[in-house]
């Protein structure tokens, strides 16, 4: 009975979450985006060093809809979005569920900077629809939403908050630890922040910057220290993408992780894909921010443990 009592107590949060998702759909439909559905069950996910898929028969549940969505881009659909379930094995914590809800959108003919503008407009639009006005309060912190939001590079953030160079962090193999312990807690505390220009080797599907090949055209959106979205100027060089997938596959084999077959149809389509930008935004985490909930458990009706 305890579980049902908890479930009944989520009514208000679930109502706001549903209104948020309706508002997001309206935002994209009004701008002429196509709401596309792609299969949840796929032959293999894109091989990435640190993302593990959940098996489903001989295939896998998607870790992100990106492979199919980029094939749509390549086939001539220039503005597409969807809100769908994604699955990642072993991810469970205050901000992680192994089954979670993702919003992805893609635009042909543009780069990652346009997506920063999209993020600002989208979240201001949703907060307006929910009657939140120009600011959100999350766990005692007040975050002003009025654009423009802060845009800082990973290099600047490491220097400012960790007193450590990005190269040094990579050389000492402590980039992730530094990011989590020293940098993230400062990001987006007064207004949202775009952390941009990641070291090139940390953007597996991102294009490197033409002027500075050391960095990938990738950003992450943070609000109140919480990572909400990851975006790229998409890599469209199929040969380079194949090299990166092969490198990630080697890395996975070395670490005894499941090896995934290369997504050949995606790689074939990539050579026809126009320059594009794409982004994945965690719906559950956005719901946490907009309903002032401390954990991801609070914004979904059911967690795996409650089933």
């Amino acid at each position: 009975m305890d579980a049902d009592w908890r479930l009944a107590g989520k009514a208000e949060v679930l109502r706001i979450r549903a209104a948020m998702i309706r508002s997001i759909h309206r935002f994209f439909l009004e701008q002429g985006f196509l709401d596309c559905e792609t299969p949840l069950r796929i032959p293999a996910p894109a091989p990435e060093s640190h993302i593990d898929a959940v098996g489903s028969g001989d295939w896998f549940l998607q870790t992100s809809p990106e492979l199919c969505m980029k094939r749509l881009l390549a086939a001539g659909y220039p503005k597409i979005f969807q809100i769908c379930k994604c699955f990642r094995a072993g991810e469970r914590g205050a901000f992680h569920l192994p089954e979670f809800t993702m919003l992805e959108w893609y635009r042909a003919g543009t780069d990652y900077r346009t997506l920063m503008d999209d993020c600002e407009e989208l979240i201001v639009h949703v907060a307006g629809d929910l009657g939140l006005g120009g600011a959100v309060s999350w766990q005692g912190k007040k975050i002003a939403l009025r654009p423009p939001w802060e845009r800082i590079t990973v290099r600047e953030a490491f220097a400012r908050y960790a007193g450590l160079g990005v190269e040094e962090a990579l050389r000492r193999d402590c980039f992730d630890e530094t990011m989590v312990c020293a940098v993230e807690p400062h990001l987006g505390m007064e207004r949202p922040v775009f952390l941009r220009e990641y070291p090139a080797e940390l953007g597996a599907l991102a294009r490197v910057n033409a002027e500075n090949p050391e960095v990938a055209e990738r950003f992450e959106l943070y609000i109140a220290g919480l990572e909400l979205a990851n975006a790229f100027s998409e890599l469209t060089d199929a040969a380079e993408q194949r090299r990166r997938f092969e490198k990630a596959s080697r890395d996975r084999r070395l670490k005894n992780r499941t090896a995934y077959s290369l997504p050949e149809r995606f790689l074939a389509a990539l050579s026809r894909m126009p320059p594009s930008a794409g982004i994945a935004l965690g719906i559950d985490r956005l719901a946490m921010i907009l309903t002032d909930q401390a954990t991801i458990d609070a914004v979904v009706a059911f967690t795996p443990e409650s089933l």
Partner: protein
Amino acid sequence: MYTASDLRKGLRIKIDNDPYIVTEFNFVKPGKGQALYRCKLKNMVNGNQFERTFRSVDIFEAADLQEKKMQYLYQEEGKYCFMDNQNYEQVFLSADQVGEAKYFLLDNIEVEILFFEDRPLGISLPNFIDVTVTKADPWAKGDSVSGNTKPVTVQTGYQLQVPPFIEEGEKIRIDTRSGEYLTRVKG
């Protein structure tokens, strides 16, 4: 053996030959980065706390912890002596290891002693003990100025607040977890 993904609040692991208890645990994963396990750990020998971030490849030994029933014998120069009634082996605990429990160590009382390998770490008392009140001011009926409780001393030297009707020589029951008075014990 545990891996980092097995870590949970309350889990007890061995690091550098000391037992640690996980007091806080968080799974974190920076965008596209590796899974990290942020823990607060408390050294069960000296109580020191620290924060550590582990990776999924990190492995840990379980701390070999055992509780043994032992009988309290005596205290001498800040050392507390306990005996295992099965094999008559005796161990000594320091005042720090005994901690607040020293107020409730009745003669021959049976307690649980937590061992890490062969080292005693601390003791757990029965939740309730009955003790004799050795010092109490008499109950002045109608005395409302002193409030609803009065201080008394019990046979172990421990002082606590009890209802005003408790008299010297009576037995009372104490909850050893809170150190508070529960009830008067008849007989």
